[in-house]
């Protein structure tokens, strides 16, 4: 008989209702048998159907790693992608559903390879508990520690350690206990609420669902019985109310509702609530859950709330309990896990996406990375793929959050690349930085417009970008002369000159180049604030830094000038003899030779220099400024 029951039947069981559903992650090193275990669980709970079973028999013959004996390769039930079946590995997380008389389970089967850590983290982010598989022959490995650490980092508090392949070590009790000891020793500081240990053979089914006759010395629960007994605290209903706003519903003039999924606590008609970003308060007039008006709604429910007052409230904001409000800050510290081949570099700008908010953000400081083996802190200048680091992050405007420890829904964010839109990292917020609270922007009485008005000009930044030797400084110099002749107040920031003073401490690594641009952009901003027309002449090879610079300024204030000269011509001119040295290998990280130049996609001014005199090009810019 299949152990499939409907919800009504489940409620008749003795388990409390809140505990009838468990999201489980399987993790562990490559070849520890994760997929085999899931196949075994499905098979032994009779959830493999006839046509799937025939397919499994056929596939075992074709791809299976258990060839040569009669046993089925259960991993083939879960490794669904062609590449996975061909290589015999798990690449991406697979979700499987199964039911026992006690509980409903969603199992996320995640890859063991370090290369696919992003997929493991994907599975872990929503899991309540994790099964950590260990190959009894190999014991605790680097990957075991790594996965256990990531599970803990992502807030999983219940672990079952499945010591698998006991059949291959003759069901040796001493070996099993040694592995348990080793696991306990390293995981002590990871904050788990419960850790269970089961000696097991997924391939033969020992202690997976039923007790194993091969291991009479083991008196504990089977793996499934452990999973059925895990007591997940679903106490977010008692936490302070949080409703992140997804969208405002305005079907007609008489209705204005705020839709979202409650992220903590409860709310009732008549309750006082506060808009997190503005601090404005109101009362709940009505609550819609689907098409029904309800009196009260709790954590997890998708609702639409109507307020008594007409407040400024839209997507990205949050409705919260007045007595216990979330943090509102533009600087915070977070643990960040990095997913992308391009490393995370402090100073570079990303999109920070919380559940409902999206905003430009910069990692201001990488405080340290965390060594996965020793959990020790290591100093670093960049966060590489699959590494975890502690960072200070600064957003362009304040965002609303709780600490991840208190709430996994309101304490998380992902970082997105501005150009490719790839999800490059994920963060768990620790706390706001005091700076954000205590350092307030000093607003003087004389502002930029007052200063500029005195000079009869509009402040502006002309940002010249292009290869070394392309003619940036030559053209910028002529533009400045033309402007000066017309009585405009200008200043030129030249890459080489700035590196002699303000940026003399910076080299030419990618990290240093990012910081070089950041400082130049900030100085240009101060000068624009002083009312000047600023000419910035920097190679500035990376799109993301130019974008970061652009975002410091008001609309129309930043003019990107692409000085477009083919590299062959630049190398031919070679005014400083640098190309010759670079091609001889004497200069590292030379743009265009050994470091990339990312050409602007849509600059305000695109100067193709070949066949044109610098003066003509400078006058093109002057013309643009006249028309602006």
């Amino acid at each position: 008989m299949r152990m499939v029951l409907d919800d009504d039947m489940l409620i008749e069981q003795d388990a409390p209702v809140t505990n009838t559903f468990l999201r489980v992650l399987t993790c562990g090193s490559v070849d520890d048998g994760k997929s085999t275990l899931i196949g075994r669980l499905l098979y032994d709970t009779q959830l493999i159907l006839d046509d799937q079973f025939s397919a499994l028999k056929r596939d075992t013959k074709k791809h299976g790693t258990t060839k040569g004996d009669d046993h089925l390769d259960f991993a083939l039930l879960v490794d669904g992608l062609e590449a996975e079946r061909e290589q015999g590995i798990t690449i991406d997380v697979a979700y499987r559903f199964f039911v026992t008389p006690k509980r409903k389970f969603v199992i996320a089967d995640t890859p063991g390879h370090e290369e696919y850590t992003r997929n493991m983290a994907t599975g872990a982010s929503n899991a309540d508990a994790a099964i950590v598989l260990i190959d009894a022959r190999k014991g605790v490995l680097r990957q075991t520690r790594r996965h256990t650490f990531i599970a803990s980092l992502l807030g999983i508090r219940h672990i079952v350690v499945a010591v698998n392949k006991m059949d291959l070590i003759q069901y040796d009790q001493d070996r099993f206990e040694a592995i348990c000891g080793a696991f306990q020793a390293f995981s002590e500081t990871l904050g788990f609420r419960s850790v269970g240990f089961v000696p097991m053979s997924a391939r033969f089914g020992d202690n997976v669902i039923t007790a194993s006759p091969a291991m009479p010395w083991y008196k504990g629960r089977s793996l499934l019985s452990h999973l059925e007994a895990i007591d997940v605290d679903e106490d977010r209903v008692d936490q302070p109310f949080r409703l992140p706003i997804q969208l405002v519903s305005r079907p007609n003039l008489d209705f204005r509702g705020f839709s979202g999924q409650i992220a903590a606590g409860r709310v009732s008609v008549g309750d006082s609530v506060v808009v997190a970003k503005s601090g404005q308060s109101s009362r709940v007039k009505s609550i819609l859950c689907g098409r029904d008006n309800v009196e009260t709604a709790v954590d997890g429910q998708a609702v639409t709330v109507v307020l008594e007052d007409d407040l400024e409230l839209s997507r990205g904001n949050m409705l919260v309990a007045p007595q216990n409000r979330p943090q509102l800050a533009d600087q915070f510290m977070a643990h960040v896990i990095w997913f992308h081949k391009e490393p995370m570099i402090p100073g570079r700008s990303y999109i920070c996406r919380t559940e409902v908010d999206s905003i430009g953000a910069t990692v201001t400081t990488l405080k340290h990375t965390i060594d996965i083996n020793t959990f020790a802190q290591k100093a670093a200048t960049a966060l590489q793929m699959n590494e975890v680091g502690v960072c200070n992050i600064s957003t362009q405007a304040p965002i609303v959050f709780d600490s991840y420890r208190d709430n996994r829904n309101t304490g998380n964010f992902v970082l997105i690349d501005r150009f490719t839109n790839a999800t490059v990292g994920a963060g768990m917020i620790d706390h706001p930085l005091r700076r954000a609270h205590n350092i307030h922007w000093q607003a003087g009485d004389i502002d930029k417009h007052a200063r500029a008005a005195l000079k009869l000009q509009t402040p502006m930044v002309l940002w010249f970008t292009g290869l070394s030797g392309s003619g940036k400084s030559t053209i910028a110099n002529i533009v400045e002369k033309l402007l000066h002749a017309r009585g405009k107040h200008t200043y030129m920031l030249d890459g080489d000159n700035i590196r002699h003073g303000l940026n003399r401490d910076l080299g030419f690594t990618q990290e240093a180049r990012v910081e070089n641009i950041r400082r130049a952009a900030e100085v240009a901003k101060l000068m624009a604030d002083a009312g000047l027309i600023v000419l910035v002449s920097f190679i500035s090879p990376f799109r993301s830094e130019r974008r970061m610079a652009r975002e410091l300024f008001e609309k129309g204030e930043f003019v990107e000038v692409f000085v477009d000269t083919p590299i062959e011509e630049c190398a031919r001119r070679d005014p400083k003899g640098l190309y010759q040295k670079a091609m001889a290998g004497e200069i590292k990280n030379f743009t265009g030779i050994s470091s990339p130049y990312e050409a602007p996609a849509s600059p305000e001014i695109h100067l193709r220099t070949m066949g044109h005199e610098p003066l003509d090009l400078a006058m093109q810019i002057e013309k643009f400024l006249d028309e602006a």
Partner: protein
Amino acid sequence: MTMTYLQKLEAESIHIMREVAATFSRPVMLYSIGKDSSVMLHLALKAFYPAKPPFPLLHIDTTWKFREMIAFRDKTAIELGLNLLVHTNQDGIDQNVNPFDSGATAYTHMMKTLALRQALDQYGFDAAFGGGRRDEEKSRSKERIFSFRDSKHTWDPKNQRPEMWRTYNTRVNRSESIRVFPLSNWTELDVWQYINQENIPVVPLYLAQRRPIVRRDGMLLMIDDDRLRVRQEERVEELLVRFRTLGCYPLTGAIESSARTVPEIIQEMLTVRTSERQGRAIDSDEEASMEKKKREGYF
């Protein structure tokens, strides 16, 4: 006050739909008329109430759907006052591509995959909801809820975006798009229990009835119109059957069943020994065929 499992699934799906409505400029809901589409539409009506869902429905009509499906589709759109777009690949019609002579693979590619790509390009949709569930098939169990497609509608299963918590990356560049699966975490049984709980109308073909059937290639094919050419050796039988999934009638096998009501279907599901897609000819056509079709842009 605790949510039931179905309430949790419902809330998750509604949250997903609202994310799409709030962050994409031209979303669309693929409406295939089946039970999953019925559930998806029901959830959309709840998600945006009292407003109507802020996106149109799109049906890819191969011209070989069961007649009852088309009648149900048109009735649903009129009753709910929804904007229904219907697209057929005219090239396929001109070339007389059909499920009998062209082979299931070529037919599906032309009339479903290419047709869908045409429609998405024509209207410039940047997000498309589909009713796919992870329990249906192995490559689906690996797919993200927000599943990225490049400008050629291609799915790259080896390079999916990480998808953390319920914090979705909804950003795409011009001509790229996202396929969104709000029912990812539902199972077939969940879908039927929800249909039962919410009284959601479904196409009557899901319920057992006596229907004219021929047995062909191990499938029970219903004779929906006279385009099905009954072969000499075949015999037309009146059998008590129903369908577990609905697609093009020449490619969709019925099962013998006496379940005439939704509760009876649920009862039947508790003892059934075959999987849902077993009646679909296009899946068994070749090894890993679903993944291949999905990479090419099939839903």
